Protein backbone atom coordinates (compact mmCIF):
# COMPACT_ATOMS: atom_id res chain seq x y z
CA UNK A 1 0.00 0.00 0.00
CA UNK A 2 1.34 3.41 -0.83
CA UNK A 3 2.49 5.81 1.79
CA UNK A 4 -0.29 8.24 0.92
CA UNK A 5 -3.00 5.59 1.15
CA UNK A 6 -1.78 4.55 4.63
CA UNK A 7 -1.54 8.17 5.69
CA UNK A 8 -5.06 8.94 4.47
CA UNK A 9 -6.48 5.99 6.46
CA UNK A 10 -4.67 7.26 9.56
CA UNK A 11 -5.75 10.86 8.90
CA UNK A 12 -9.35 9.64 8.85
CA UNK A 13 -8.77 8.08 12.27
CA UNK A 14 -7.20 11.28 13.64
CA UNK A 15 -10.12 13.42 12.41
CA UNK A 16 -12.74 10.97 13.65
CA UNK A 17 -11.29 10.69 17.16
CA UNK A 18 -10.84 14.47 17.45
CA UNK A 19 -14.28 15.44 16.16
CA UNK A 20 -15.71 12.82 18.52
CA UNK A 21 -13.92 14.14 21.62
CA UNK A 22 -13.24 17.78 20.48
CA UNK A 23 -10.47 17.90 23.12
CA UNK A 24 -7.78 19.64 21.10
CA UNK A 25 -9.97 22.07 19.19
CA UNK A 26 -11.81 23.25 22.29
CA UNK A 27 -8.57 23.80 24.21
CA UNK A 28 -6.86 25.78 21.46
CA UNK A 29 -9.88 27.89 20.47
CA UNK A 30 -10.55 28.90 24.08
CA UNK A 31 -6.86 29.62 24.72
CA UNK A 32 -6.37 31.85 21.68
CA UNK A 33 -9.71 33.59 22.24
CA UNK A 34 -8.73 34.43 25.82
CA UNK A 35 -5.33 35.81 24.78
CA UNK A 36 -6.81 37.98 22.03
CA UNK A 37 -9.69 39.30 24.14
CA UNK A 38 -7.62 39.92 27.28
CA UNK A 39 -4.87 41.70 25.35
CA UNK A 40 -7.44 43.87 23.59
CA UNK A 41 -9.17 44.81 26.87
CA UNK A 42 -5.90 45.42 28.72
CA UNK A 43 -4.14 47.63 26.18
CA UNK A 44 -7.06 48.93 24.11
CA UNK A 45 -4.75 49.38 21.10
CA UNK A 46 -5.39 51.93 18.37
CA UNK A 47 -5.63 50.75 14.77
CA UNK A 48 -1.99 51.70 14.12
CA UNK A 49 -0.80 49.90 17.26
CA UNK A 50 -2.85 46.86 16.29
CA UNK A 51 -1.17 46.70 12.89
CA UNK A 52 2.20 46.96 14.60
CA UNK A 53 1.72 44.52 17.49
CA UNK A 54 -1.32 42.47 16.38
CA UNK A 55 0.48 40.04 14.05
CA UNK A 56 3.09 39.19 16.71
CA UNK A 57 0.40 38.70 19.33
CA UNK A 58 -1.62 36.56 16.95
CA UNK A 59 1.29 34.27 16.09
CA UNK A 60 2.43 34.03 19.71
CA UNK A 61 -1.08 32.94 20.65
CA UNK A 62 -1.06 30.40 17.78
CA UNK A 63 2.31 29.08 18.90
CA UNK A 64 1.34 28.62 22.55
CA UNK A 65 -1.96 27.08 21.52
CA UNK A 66 -0.09 24.72 19.20
CA UNK A 67 2.12 23.58 22.06
CA UNK A 68 -1.06 22.67 23.96
CA UNK A 69 -2.46 20.91 20.90
CA UNK A 70 0.71 18.98 20.11
CA UNK A 71 1.26 17.65 23.64
CA UNK A 72 -1.30 14.81 23.44
CA UNK A 73 -0.49 14.03 19.79
CA UNK A 74 1.70 11.00 20.59
CA UNK A 75 0.94 10.85 24.29
CA UNK A 76 -2.52 9.45 23.69
CA UNK A 77 -1.06 6.73 21.46
CA UNK A 78 0.69 5.47 24.61
CA UNK A 79 -2.48 4.96 26.64
CA UNK A 80 -3.18 1.56 25.09
CA UNK A 81 0.14 1.17 23.26
CA UNK A 82 -1.66 1.88 19.99
CA UNK A 83 1.55 3.31 18.54
CA UNK A 84 2.98 -0.23 18.56
CA UNK A 85 -0.11 -1.48 16.72
CA UNK A 86 0.37 1.25 14.11
CA UNK A 87 4.06 0.44 13.74
CA UNK A 88 3.17 -3.21 13.16
CA UNK A 89 0.53 -2.29 10.58
CA UNK A 90 2.11 0.34 8.32
CA UNK A 91 4.87 -0.33 5.82
CA UNK A 92 6.44 3.11 6.17
CA UNK A 93 6.37 4.74 9.64
CA UNK A 94 6.44 8.14 7.93
CA UNK A 95 2.73 7.53 7.20
CA UNK A 96 2.07 7.92 10.95
CA UNK A 97 3.86 11.28 10.99
CA UNK A 98 2.25 12.41 7.76
CA UNK A 99 -1.23 11.72 9.12
CA UNK A 100 -0.54 13.40 12.43
CA UNK A 101 1.10 16.50 11.03
CA UNK A 102 -1.69 16.89 8.45
CA UNK A 103 -4.30 16.58 11.19
CA UNK A 104 -2.44 19.07 13.40
CA UNK A 105 -2.14 21.54 10.51
CA UNK A 106 -5.87 21.23 9.77
CA UNK A 107 -6.81 21.69 13.43
CA UNK A 108 -4.53 24.70 13.74
CA UNK A 109 -5.85 26.27 10.53
CA UNK A 110 -9.43 25.68 11.62
CA UNK A 111 -8.71 27.40 14.93
CA UNK A 112 -7.01 30.32 13.17
CA UNK A 113 -9.85 30.86 10.71
CA UNK A 114 -12.42 30.72 13.53
CA UNK A 115 -10.55 33.42 15.44
CA UNK A 116 -9.44 35.68 12.58
CA UNK A 117 -12.80 37.53 12.36
CA UNK A 118 -12.73 38.14 16.14
CA UNK A 119 -9.19 39.49 15.87
CA UNK A 120 -10.25 41.71 12.98
CA UNK A 121 -13.17 43.21 14.93
CA UNK A 122 -11.43 43.62 18.30
CA UNK A 123 -8.26 45.13 16.81
CA UNK A 124 -9.96 47.12 14.06
CA UNK A 125 -7.81 45.56 11.34
CA UNK A 126 -9.23 44.89 7.87
CA UNK A 127 -8.34 41.34 6.81
CA UNK A 128 -10.73 40.80 3.91
CA UNK A 129 -8.66 42.61 1.21
CA UNK A 130 -5.68 40.33 1.91
CA UNK A 131 -7.58 37.21 2.99
CA UNK A 132 -6.10 35.00 0.25
CA UNK A 133 -2.54 35.87 1.20
CA UNK A 134 -3.33 35.54 4.92
CA UNK A 135 -4.66 32.03 4.31
CA UNK A 136 -1.44 31.20 2.45
CA UNK A 137 0.77 32.54 5.27
CA UNK A 138 -1.33 30.80 7.93
CA UNK A 139 -0.92 27.58 5.98
CA UNK A 140 2.86 27.87 5.64
CA UNK A 141 3.32 28.93 9.28
CA UNK A 142 0.94 26.30 10.67
CA UNK A 143 2.57 23.61 8.55
CA UNK A 144 5.99 24.54 9.96
CA UNK A 145 4.64 24.50 13.51
CA UNK A 146 2.97 21.14 12.92
CA UNK A 147 5.96 19.44 11.28
CA UNK A 148 8.43 20.43 13.98
CA UNK A 149 5.84 20.01 16.73
CA UNK A 150 4.78 16.52 15.65
CA UNK A 151 8.40 15.37 15.61
CA UNK A 152 9.08 16.85 19.04
CA UNK A 153 5.83 15.41 20.37
CA UNK A 154 7.07 11.93 19.39
CA UNK A 155 10.35 12.59 21.22
CA UNK A 156 8.85 14.12 24.35
CA UNK A 157 6.12 11.46 24.69
CA UNK A 158 8.77 8.90 25.64
CA UNK A 159 10.63 11.18 28.05
CA UNK A 160 10.28 11.98 31.69
CA UNK A 161 8.95 15.51 32.45
CA UNK A 162 7.23 15.32 29.06
CA UNK A 163 4.75 18.13 29.85
CA UNK A 164 7.67 20.52 30.34
CA UNK A 165 9.92 19.12 27.64
CA UNK A 166 7.73 19.80 24.61
CA UNK A 167 7.33 23.58 25.11
CA UNK A 168 10.99 23.83 26.14
CA UNK A 169 12.08 22.26 22.85
CA UNK A 170 9.31 23.61 20.66
CA UNK A 171 9.32 27.32 21.41
CA UNK A 172 13.03 28.00 20.70
CA UNK A 173 12.95 25.80 17.60
CA UNK A 174 9.92 27.63 16.22
CA UNK A 175 11.22 31.14 16.94
CA UNK A 176 12.32 31.57 13.28
CA UNK A 177 8.82 30.53 12.11
CA UNK A 178 7.29 32.97 14.58
CA UNK A 179 9.47 35.84 13.35
CA UNK A 180 8.94 35.09 9.66
CA UNK A 181 5.18 34.55 9.99
CA UNK A 182 4.83 37.75 12.01
CA UNK A 183 6.84 39.71 9.45
CA UNK A 184 4.72 38.46 6.53
CA UNK A 185 1.43 39.00 8.39
CA UNK A 186 2.51 42.51 9.45
CA UNK A 187 3.29 43.39 5.81
CA UNK A 188 -0.14 42.13 4.75
CA UNK A 189 -1.96 44.15 7.43
CA UNK A 190 -0.06 47.34 6.57
CA UNK A 191 -2.20 50.30 5.34
CA UNK A 192 -0.40 49.74 2.01
CA UNK A 193 -0.27 45.93 2.02
CA UNK A 194 2.61 44.14 0.35
CA UNK A 195 3.91 40.59 0.18
CA UNK A 196 7.13 39.86 2.05
CA UNK A 197 8.62 37.27 -0.28
CA UNK A 198 11.65 36.93 1.96
CA UNK A 199 9.46 35.75 4.84
CA UNK A 200 7.39 33.46 2.61
CA UNK A 201 10.54 31.97 1.13
CA UNK A 202 11.94 31.35 4.60
CA UNK A 203 8.73 29.61 5.74
CA UNK A 204 8.66 27.42 2.61
CA UNK A 205 12.31 26.38 3.08
CA UNK A 206 11.77 25.71 6.81
CA UNK A 207 8.78 23.47 6.02
CA UNK A 208 10.67 21.62 3.30
CA UNK A 209 13.81 21.04 5.38
CA UNK A 210 11.95 19.80 8.46
CA UNK A 211 9.60 17.62 6.39
CA UNK A 212 12.60 16.00 4.68
CA UNK A 213 14.35 15.47 8.03
CA UNK A 214 11.20 13.88 9.44
CA UNK A 215 10.90 11.61 6.41
CA UNK A 216 14.53 10.52 6.76
CA UNK A 217 14.77 10.12 10.53
CA UNK A 218 11.17 9.81 11.74
CA UNK A 219 11.41 6.02 12.09
CA UNK A 220 14.00 6.40 14.86
CA UNK A 221 11.74 8.74 16.83
CA UNK A 222 9.13 5.99 17.16
CA UNK A 223 11.46 3.34 18.52
CA UNK A 224 11.21 2.29 22.15
Amino acid sequence: MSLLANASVLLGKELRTEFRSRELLTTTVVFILMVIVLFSFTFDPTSAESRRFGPGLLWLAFLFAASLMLQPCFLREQTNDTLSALRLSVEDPFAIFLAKLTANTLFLLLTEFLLLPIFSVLYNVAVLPVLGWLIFVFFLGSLGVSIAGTALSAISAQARMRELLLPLLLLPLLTPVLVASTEVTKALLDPSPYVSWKGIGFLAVFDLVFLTALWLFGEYLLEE
Partner: protein
Amino acid sequence: MTPPAGPSSGIRFENIDKRYGGLYALRRLTMEVTPGECVVLAGPNGSGKTTLLRIAARLVRPSSGIVTFPSAHKSPAAGDAPTGFVAHATMVYDELTAEENLTLFARLLEIPDPQTRVGKLLLEVGLVDRRSSLVRTFSRGMRQRVAIARALLHEPPLLLLDEPATGLDPQGTAWLAETLRRLRDAGCTILMSLHGESNISSLATRGIRLEAGRVAADTRTGATLQSILTFADA
Protein backbone atom coordinates in the same frame (compact mmCIF):
# COMPACT_ATOMS: atom_id res chain seq x y z
CA MET B 1 -10.67 -19.61 12.59
CA THR B 2 -9.02 -19.30 9.19
CA PRO B 3 -5.58 -20.92 8.82
CA PRO B 4 -2.61 -18.61 8.36
CA ALA B 5 -2.38 -16.93 4.97
CA GLY B 6 1.32 -17.38 4.24
CA PRO B 7 3.92 -20.10 4.80
CA SER B 8 4.70 -20.79 8.44
CA SER B 9 7.54 -18.71 9.84
CA GLY B 10 9.93 -19.32 12.70
CA ILE B 11 12.18 -16.99 14.69
CA ARG B 12 15.87 -17.27 15.42
CA PHE B 13 17.48 -15.21 18.17
CA GLU B 14 21.27 -15.13 18.09
CA ASN B 15 23.26 -13.73 21.02
CA ILE B 16 20.58 -11.20 21.90
CA ASP B 17 21.44 -8.61 24.52
CA LYS B 18 18.95 -5.96 25.56
CA ARG B 19 20.00 -3.32 28.04
CA TYR B 20 17.92 -0.56 29.57
CA GLY B 21 20.58 1.74 30.93
CA GLY B 22 22.80 -0.53 33.00
CA LEU B 23 20.10 -3.16 33.47
CA TYR B 24 20.15 -6.27 31.29
CA ALA B 25 16.66 -7.46 30.28
CA LEU B 26 18.17 -10.16 28.04
CA ARG B 27 21.70 -11.53 28.17
CA ARG B 28 23.39 -13.48 25.37
CA LEU B 29 20.11 -15.17 24.55
CA THR B 30 20.23 -17.67 21.71
CA MET B 31 17.22 -19.79 20.76
CA GLU B 32 15.20 -20.78 17.73
CA VAL B 33 11.50 -21.36 17.32
CA THR B 34 10.97 -23.55 14.26
CA PRO B 35 8.00 -23.04 11.93
CA GLY B 36 4.80 -24.58 13.29
CA GLU B 37 5.92 -24.80 16.91
CA CYS B 38 3.76 -23.64 19.80
CA VAL B 39 6.15 -22.38 22.46
CA VAL B 40 5.25 -21.24 25.94
CA LEU B 41 7.62 -18.80 27.65
CA ALA B 42 7.57 -19.03 31.41
CA GLY B 43 9.56 -17.34 34.10
CA PRO B 44 9.30 -14.95 37.02
CA ASN B 45 8.48 -11.26 36.64
CA GLY B 46 11.39 -9.40 35.06
CA SER B 47 12.88 -12.50 33.47
CA GLY B 48 12.70 -10.94 29.98
CA LYS B 49 9.58 -12.56 28.47
CA THR B 50 7.93 -9.32 27.37
CA THR B 51 11.20 -7.86 26.06
CA LEU B 52 11.82 -11.01 24.04
CA LEU B 53 8.32 -10.88 22.52
CA ARG B 54 8.67 -7.18 21.67
CA ILE B 55 12.02 -7.84 20.01
CA ALA B 56 10.40 -10.69 18.04
CA ALA B 57 7.65 -8.27 16.97
CA ARG B 58 10.37 -5.83 15.84
CA LEU B 59 9.03 -3.16 18.17
CA VAL B 60 12.24 -3.09 20.21
CA ARG B 61 15.71 -3.15 18.72
CA PRO B 62 18.13 -5.44 20.59
CA SER B 63 21.28 -3.81 21.99
CA SER B 64 23.25 -6.50 20.19
CA GLY B 65 22.57 -9.76 18.40
CA ILE B 66 20.50 -10.77 15.39
CA VAL B 67 16.86 -11.80 14.94
CA THR B 68 15.88 -13.63 11.76
CA PHE B 69 12.63 -15.17 10.56
CA PRO B 70 13.30 -18.46 8.76
CA SER B 71 10.34 -19.59 6.71
CA ALA B 72 9.20 -23.19 6.25
CA HIS B 73 9.43 -22.74 2.49
CA LYS B 74 12.48 -20.60 1.89
CA SER B 75 15.89 -19.84 3.20
CA PRO B 76 16.23 -17.73 6.35
CA ALA B 77 15.42 -14.10 5.68
CA ALA B 78 15.17 -11.18 8.02
CA GLY B 79 12.15 -9.05 8.53
CA ASP B 80 9.40 -10.05 6.11
CA ALA B 81 7.24 -12.32 8.25
CA PRO B 82 3.73 -10.96 8.93
CA THR B 83 3.33 -10.99 12.68
CA GLY B 84 0.29 -10.92 14.93
CA PHE B 85 1.04 -9.45 18.33
CA VAL B 86 -1.04 -9.31 21.50
CA ALA B 87 0.65 -7.22 24.18
CA HIS B 88 -0.09 -6.36 27.80
CA ALA B 89 -1.95 -3.27 26.59
CA THR B 90 -4.91 -3.74 24.27
CA MET B 91 -3.39 -1.76 21.36
CA VAL B 92 -6.82 -0.50 20.29
CA TYR B 93 -8.39 2.96 20.45
CA ASP B 94 -10.86 3.64 23.25
CA GLU B 95 -12.48 6.43 21.24
CA LEU B 96 -13.33 4.17 18.29
CA THR B 97 -15.90 1.39 18.16
CA ALA B 98 -14.84 -2.26 17.97
CA GLU B 99 -15.72 -2.30 14.28
CA GLU B 100 -13.92 1.00 13.54
CA ASN B 101 -10.79 -0.26 15.31
CA LEU B 102 -10.67 -3.51 13.37
CA THR B 103 -11.54 -1.80 10.07
CA LEU B 104 -8.76 0.75 10.62
CA PHE B 105 -6.12 -1.94 11.08
CA ALA B 106 -7.60 -4.13 8.33
CA ARG B 107 -7.22 -1.25 5.87
CA LEU B 108 -3.67 -0.52 7.01
CA LEU B 109 -2.82 -4.20 6.60
CA GLU B 110 -4.33 -4.20 3.10
CA ILE B 111 -6.75 -7.00 3.86
CA PRO B 112 -8.99 -7.62 0.86
CA ASP B 113 -12.67 -6.98 1.63
CA PRO B 114 -12.00 -5.66 5.15
CA GLN B 115 -15.69 -5.34 6.08
CA THR B 116 -16.31 -9.06 5.57
CA ARG B 117 -13.16 -10.04 7.48
CA VAL B 118 -13.99 -7.68 10.36
CA GLY B 119 -17.59 -8.94 10.52
CA LYS B 120 -16.38 -12.53 10.63
CA LEU B 121 -13.88 -11.85 13.40
CA LEU B 122 -16.41 -9.89 15.48
CA LEU B 123 -18.70 -12.90 15.25
CA GLU B 124 -15.88 -15.23 16.30
CA VAL B 125 -14.86 -13.15 19.32
CA GLY B 126 -18.50 -12.76 20.38
CA LEU B 127 -18.72 -9.00 19.95
CA VAL B 128 -20.96 -8.76 16.91
CA ASP B 129 -23.79 -7.28 18.99
CA ARG B 130 -21.45 -4.61 20.39
CA ARG B 131 -19.72 -3.82 17.10
CA SER B 132 -20.91 -0.19 17.18
CA SER B 133 -20.06 0.46 20.83
CA LEU B 134 -17.02 2.54 21.74
CA VAL B 135 -14.22 0.38 23.12
CA ARG B 136 -14.03 2.61 26.21
CA THR B 137 -17.44 1.27 27.25
CA PHE B 138 -16.13 -2.33 27.18
CA SER B 139 -15.01 -4.46 30.10
CA ARG B 140 -11.34 -5.55 30.25
CA GLY B 141 -12.23 -8.96 28.90
CA MET B 142 -14.16 -7.51 25.95
CA ARG B 143 -11.24 -5.20 25.15
CA GLN B 144 -8.95 -8.20 25.19
CA ARG B 145 -11.21 -9.94 22.68
CA VAL B 146 -10.89 -6.91 20.37
CA ALA B 147 -7.11 -7.00 20.90
CA ILE B 148 -6.96 -10.67 19.93
CA ALA B 149 -9.18 -10.06 16.90
CA ARG B 150 -6.84 -7.24 15.81
CA ALA B 151 -3.83 -9.57 16.03
CA LEU B 152 -5.59 -12.23 13.95
CA LEU B 153 -6.93 -9.84 11.26
CA HIS B 154 -4.31 -10.67 8.62
CA GLU B 155 -4.10 -14.39 9.52
CA PRO B 156 -0.42 -14.12 10.41
CA PRO B 157 1.78 -17.21 10.15
CA LEU B 158 3.58 -16.04 13.31
CA LEU B 159 1.69 -15.17 16.50
CA LEU B 160 3.33 -13.47 19.48
CA LEU B 161 1.16 -13.39 22.57
CA ASP B 162 2.06 -11.71 25.85
CA GLU B 163 -0.30 -13.11 28.47
CA PRO B 164 -3.16 -13.24 25.98
CA ALA B 165 -5.81 -14.42 28.43
CA THR B 166 -5.54 -11.29 30.62
CA GLY B 167 -9.05 -10.24 31.64
CA LEU B 168 -10.82 -13.08 29.86
CA ASP B 169 -13.52 -15.01 31.71
CA PRO B 170 -13.48 -18.86 31.67
CA GLN B 171 -15.55 -18.95 28.46
CA GLY B 172 -13.21 -16.42 26.86
CA THR B 173 -10.15 -18.41 27.90
CA ALA B 174 -11.71 -21.60 26.52
CA TRP B 175 -12.48 -19.80 23.24
CA LEU B 176 -8.88 -18.53 23.05
CA ALA B 177 -7.48 -22.01 23.75
CA GLU B 178 -9.65 -23.50 21.01
CA THR B 179 -8.66 -20.76 18.56
CA LEU B 180 -4.96 -21.24 19.29
CA ARG B 181 -5.31 -25.01 18.98
CA ARG B 182 -6.82 -24.63 15.50
CA LEU B 183 -4.12 -22.15 14.48
CA ARG B 184 -1.38 -24.43 15.80
CA ASP B 185 -2.86 -27.41 13.96
CA ALA B 186 -3.04 -25.30 10.77
CA GLY B 187 0.72 -24.67 11.00
CA CYS B 188 0.84 -21.23 12.63
CA THR B 189 3.95 -20.62 14.75
CA ILE B 190 3.03 -19.42 18.24
CA LEU B 191 5.30 -17.91 20.87
CA MET B 192 3.51 -16.85 24.02
CA SER B 193 4.12 -15.96 27.63
CA LEU B 194 1.58 -17.21 30.11
CA HIS B 195 0.59 -16.91 33.72
CA GLY B 196 -1.94 -19.40 35.00
CA GLU B 197 -3.93 -20.49 31.93
CA SER B 198 -3.70 -24.27 32.04
CA ASN B 199 -6.00 -24.97 29.07
CA ILE B 200 -3.83 -22.67 26.95
CA SER B 201 -0.42 -23.84 28.20
CA SER B 202 -1.45 -27.43 27.50
CA LEU B 203 -1.30 -26.56 23.78
CA ALA B 204 2.46 -26.11 24.03
CA THR B 205 4.73 -28.32 21.99
CA ARG B 206 7.71 -26.78 23.74
CA GLY B 207 8.40 -24.89 26.94
CA ILE B 208 11.14 -22.38 27.62
CA ARG B 209 11.85 -20.94 31.03
CA LEU B 210 13.65 -17.62 31.22
CA GLU B 211 15.50 -16.43 34.27
CA ALA B 212 17.34 -13.10 34.50
CA GLY B 213 17.26 -12.70 30.73
CA ARG B 214 18.71 -16.11 29.96
CA VAL B 215 17.23 -19.43 28.89
CA ALA B 216 17.18 -21.50 32.08
CA ALA B 217 15.34 -24.51 30.64
CA ASP B 218 14.18 -25.48 27.15
CA THR B 219 12.44 -28.74 26.38
CA ARG B 220 9.91 -30.35 24.10
CA THR B 221 9.18 -33.54 25.99
CA GLY B 222 8.74 -35.28 29.28
CA ALA B 223 8.74 -34.13 32.83
CA THR B 224 10.82 -31.03 32.15
CA LEU B 225 8.18 -29.66 29.77
CA GLN B 226 5.58 -30.36 32.41
CA SER B 227 7.64 -28.59 35.05
CA ILE B 228 8.04 -25.52 32.80
CA LEU B 229 4.31 -25.51 32.06
CA THR B 230 3.58 -25.98 35.73
CA PHE B 231 5.71 -22.93 36.37
CA ALA B 232 3.60 -21.09 33.79
CA ASP B 233 0.45 -22.21 35.53
CA ALA B 234 1.65 -21.15 38.96
